[in-house]
């Protein structure tokens, strides 16, 4: 919860490569990596007009609700995939371990089977990267020092004064 994590640039590059491959292979509109608290980590694809920050928050809640449903119906594992099918747009959401999820937005006629298959592959690859950066805590010290705290208070004052 308050522990948080830091994503170094190198890991983000790796993540972006995996997302890029998934994006290319599936022909999806957009692929997003999100953490379970709803934080958008990275994305690939065309995002014009789509509020990806809100989409990430909703996808994480979607997975959280589905996980709770799984528990209620007696499913031992969490549901691995959620699929929302529309007239022209579809969204597939997959868990990536217990801390992350992957959302793929795609249009018809991209096939769901194909998206599912390549998403599964990408999840395996992303899991390796995710393990590397989860819970790297010490480096926060370099960022959140007293100077940062003071500057943040000033910035908040500025933002909130009409």
């Amino acid at each position, binding site marked *: *919860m*308050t522990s*948080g*994590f*830091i*994503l*170094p*640039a190198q890991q*983000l*590059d790796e993540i972006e490569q995996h997302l890029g491959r998934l994006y290319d292979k599936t022909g999806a509109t957009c692929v997003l990596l999100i*953490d*379970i*608290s*709803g*934080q958008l*980590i990275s994305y690939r694809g065309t995002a014009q007009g789509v*509020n990806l*920050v*809100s989409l990430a*928050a*909703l996808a994480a*809640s979607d997975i*959280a*609700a589905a996980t*709770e449903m799984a528990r209620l119906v007696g499913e031992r594992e969490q549901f691995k995939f959620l699929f929302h099918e529309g007239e022209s747009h579809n969204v597939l959401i997959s868990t990536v371990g217990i801390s992350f999820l992957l959302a793929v937005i795609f249009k018809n006629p991209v096939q769901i089977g194909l998206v599912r298959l390549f998403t599964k592959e990408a999840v395996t690859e992303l899991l390796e990267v995710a393990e590397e950066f989860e819970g790297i805590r*010490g*480096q*926060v*010290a370099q*960022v*959140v*020092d*007293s*100077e*940062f*705290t003071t*500057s*943040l*208070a000033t*910035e*908040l*004052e*500025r*933002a*909130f004064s*009409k």
Partner: protein
Amino acid sequence: MFINWKLREINLKIVYYGPALSGKTTNLEYIHSNLKPELRGELISLKTREDRTIFFDFLQLEVGEIKGLKPKFNLYTVPGQVIYAASRKLVLQGADGVIFVADSQWNRLQDNVDSMRNLEESLHQFGYDLARFPLAIQYNKRDLPNRAPIAVLSSRLGRNGVPQIESVAIRGVGVFDTLKTIIGVVVTRVQREID
């Protein structure tokens, strides 16, 4: 807290918690309508047809760059109604700090107490102790005639060292102060954990 070095972003998740109709959504609506559009995102509300929160409200805001990093705040509310206990817990996941929005009216005193207990239990299930979790308490609706004195509310809800702010969220009184306070508490806590 999530720091993305490549995008130079530092992200915090703040959750507004409290009993039904205490003013959690009102806090977010005020922030949304009183911040410059370039500083805030869209306000997402998952509501019932009766305009009650069914899952959460969500709003992202950001402030100017600090030491080359852009601070971003993800604000969530939980549904206050008792039946949505499961949803409340889910929204708490990954929270860096909680603002407890209490309803100051005498007839809501017990609802506040129950909601605080509910918060404590949910945090406990995530392995966190409310006594050590970044928290600020907002006593809302201070303009209503049937408000309980702060001393009474504080004795039932207050905790050692937890900041308490009076508010009239519908008019914006105390709204930004509460948010600034919890952000300060979260950042100080992170520093203390490191030291």
